[in-house]
């Protein structure tokens, strides 16, 4: 599924991915898809917690080496 927005936080560490996500989500409308790419060791857990905490639905997670892409619906 194509995402409406893409956030790249490659090379950034906790809590920057969360901060970028919170700022991006603020400018989006309900139902839009957001894709986030990062390579922080705790990236997956951070983003999953972010979605669970805010009630967003996770759609897709895939890993390529260290890089990880997560897609969710706002």
């Amino acid at each position, binding site marked *: 599924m194509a995402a409406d927005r893409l956030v790249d936080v490659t090379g950034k560490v906790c809590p920057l991915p*969360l901060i970028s996500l919170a700022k991006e989500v603020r400018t989006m409308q309900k139902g839009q898809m957001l894709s986030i790419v990062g390579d922080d060791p705790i990236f997956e857990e951070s983003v999953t917690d*972010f979605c669970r905490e805010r009630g967003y639905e996770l759609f897709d997670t895939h890993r390529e080496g260290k890089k990880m892409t997560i897609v969710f619906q706002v």
Partner: protein
Amino acid sequence: MNKKGTILLLSGDLDKALAAFIIATGFAALGVEMKMWFMIFGHNCLKKRKSFFARRRKPDPAREGLYRDLATDNILQPMVEMLNRGGAEHLPLSQLNLMGLGPMLFAKMLKKKNIQNLEELIHSADDLGVKFYICQICCDALGLSVDDLIVPNVEIKGVSAYMKDTMDAHVNLVF
């Protein structure tokens, strides 16, 4: 009900301020309504760094007078202001300070690891809607002016407001 949290920062050390702001920004990003309180040397990280010899404005009754009792000020307030200059990028470490070498090495380490420095974290926190409060008696005793802070919208409050906020919150952290 919205989740709420408060952080009380008492220490003027870089490591503690960094921990406080990382937790505040992280929690705020996750949707928790965060309030940060600063007491004693805690407000040092919010101060604009001024040179030791910089000309300092005389406290204005129409501005500082609103939250400070200027009549009881004496020579000690300008002296504290001169010696306790603060500045987010000039705070000492509580351990391994090595007379100022520690914070420099620490800053290098953070940069290499892509971790935000304290000033960026403060601005991120402000951007995410974290609210800042400073204790009124600390402002008065240490001769602090709100105009000398790097973030706008800092409120001066007392212990009653702190009580309301902490009793209302799910978590209250003290650094």
